[in-house]
């Protein structure tokens, strides 16, 4: 890779051992992908729940701080592995909470802002078109690339930490014009209504597209989706296909007319088939709204559905630390918790030791409206069930998903 004077100085250790370790990692990744040089980034976003880091990852972050490492650009965090205020509700043991606290301290030493959110494009700062960033959550990356027109690859935790420490990232993948063009065209004849419809459609497109380098161009949507709809659509597409960029004809900023012929068609039957793959059980153990974290508007919808009910099963609604104070102040949290639910903040269900909390709480059959969540939780031993927010709330009350 071609390096400028600053980058050479970092590599030589002149800016400290942490910056040296960071840029060495980035050079390895850059050379793997044939990157010509680095691009500066304006912000970095780190996925760093301790289930992923483990003790070894936490020690690595601590070592960077001990070596004097400090971030050079605003650097924020994805959800944590617990909500410290509600660890008892989840039955997170002390060792999980302790490891999380160590991680928070280690990141603070680096100058990282502990935002603990996977909806930073709704709550912190959405990037502008063409802005180069190093984002570290697939849902965040696909939204930033597709809806905002910003430029980011999937930057896994160590790489996002490195980008924060160096203020740059290797120029490959979605930083290059040639990778941002559509590679397949999908004609849609189904018009999603609920968030789980949007997630199911996104998941189907992700499954068809199949890998990180595929860029779906989608025709046929009859209305402009809102931010929460695009959030579920993108998060599910990224989850099912490892997709980082899509274009919606007439809607998203880089959806120029594509010369591609339609290669795939998706209709109502396809969406229903995906949804049916996550049906089949009536009785449920727990209801979860998470992945991505809920916006204020989703909590508003949920609070309205909770009014006047009394839950027989736990209902967990997970939001960001930016939204939670507003939900509290505006009375939404109280309405959900008066029905017996819990509003959690700063975590995400699948990033919060899903296997351990299943065992501790006896949870197996889990109802959610998140297509991303049902895709992930099978591997954690759950029977994930997909339904609309309304049906999930009914299930929390009766213990059974209504037909």
């Amino acid at each position: 890779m071609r390096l400028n004077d600053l980058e050479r100085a970092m590599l030589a250790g002149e800016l400290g051992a942490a910056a040296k370790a960071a840029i060495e990692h980035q050079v390895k990744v850059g050379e793997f992908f044939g990157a010509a040089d680095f691009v500066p980034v304006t912000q970095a976003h780190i996925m760093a729940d301790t289930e992923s880091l483990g003790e070894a990852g936490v020690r690595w972050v601590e070592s960077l701080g001990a070596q004097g490492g400090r971030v050079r650009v605003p650097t924020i965090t994805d959800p944590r592995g617990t909500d410290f205020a509600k660890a008892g509700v989840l039955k997170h043991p002390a060792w999980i909470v302790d490891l999380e606290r160590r991680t928070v301290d280690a990141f603070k030493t680096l100058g990282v802002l502990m935002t603990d959110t996977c909806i930073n494009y709704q709550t912190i700062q959405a990037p502008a078109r063409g802005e180069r960033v190093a984002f570290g959550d697939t849902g965040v990356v696909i939204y930033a690339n597709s809806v905002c027109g910003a430029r980011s690859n999937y930057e896994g935790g160590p790489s996002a930490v490195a980008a924060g420490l160096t203020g740059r990232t290797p120029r490959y993948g979605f930083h290059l014009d040639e990778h941002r063009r559509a590679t397949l065209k999908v004609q849609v004849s189904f018009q999603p209504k609920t968030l789980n419809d949007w997630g199911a459609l996104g998941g189907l497109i992700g499954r068809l597209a199949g890998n990180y380098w595929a860029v779906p161009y989608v025709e046929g949507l009859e209305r402009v989706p809102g931010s929460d709809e695009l959030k579920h659509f993108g998060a599910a597409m990224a989850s099912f296909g490892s997709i980082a960029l899509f274009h919606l004809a007439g809607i998203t900023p880089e959806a120029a007319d594509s010369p591609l012929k339609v290669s795939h068609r998706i209709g109502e039957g396809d969406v229903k088939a995906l949804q049916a793959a996550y049906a089949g059980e009536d009785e449920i153990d727990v209801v979860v709204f998470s992945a991505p974290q809920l916006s204020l508007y989703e909590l508003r919808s949920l609070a309205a559905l909770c009014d006047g009910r009394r839950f027989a099963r736990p209902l967990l609604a997970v939001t960001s630390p930016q939204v939670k104070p507003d939900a509290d102040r505006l009375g939404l949290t109280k309405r959900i918790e008066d029905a017996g639910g819990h509003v959690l903040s700063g975590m995400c269900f699948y990033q919060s030791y899903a296997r351990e909390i299943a065992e501790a709480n006896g949870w197996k059959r889990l109802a959610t409206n998140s297509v991303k969540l049902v895709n992930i939780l099978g591997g954690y031993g759950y029977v994930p069930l997909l339904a609309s927010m309304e049906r999930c709330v009914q299930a929390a009350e009766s213990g059974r998903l209504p037909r």
Partner: protein
Amino acid sequence: MIFTARHAIGGPARGQALVAHDGFSARYDLDRIRGVFSRPSHKLAGQSYVGKVLVLDTAKGGVATAWMLHEMASRGVVPLAIVLNSVNPILAQGAAFGGVTLLAGFDGDITAQVPHGATVEIDPARRTLRVC
């Protein structure tokens, strides 16, 4: 039989290949404590991945694998190497961080060409996989 990849990272490795035309994500597909594939729909479900060369189609899922290979390596519950038809940045970042050998990008479908259970030898400097 020798296959040449377009991308490589890590050190040389020799071991038994577990082959399936499925994807790979450490979070979605593995029970990392027991060291087995745990996603029920994965073709390798129930099989131990520890010390094996995983020959799979593509990187799937989220970003957690970038941390997890390092964490798995710290406990010795890690694949010996990963070989994929196509790779995403997360696998490359995770392999670089965790010190796991990775080959990706072949002419043709590598999962159709390496026999399941075969002993294979990987030379990242030459970007080659040899079926012994």
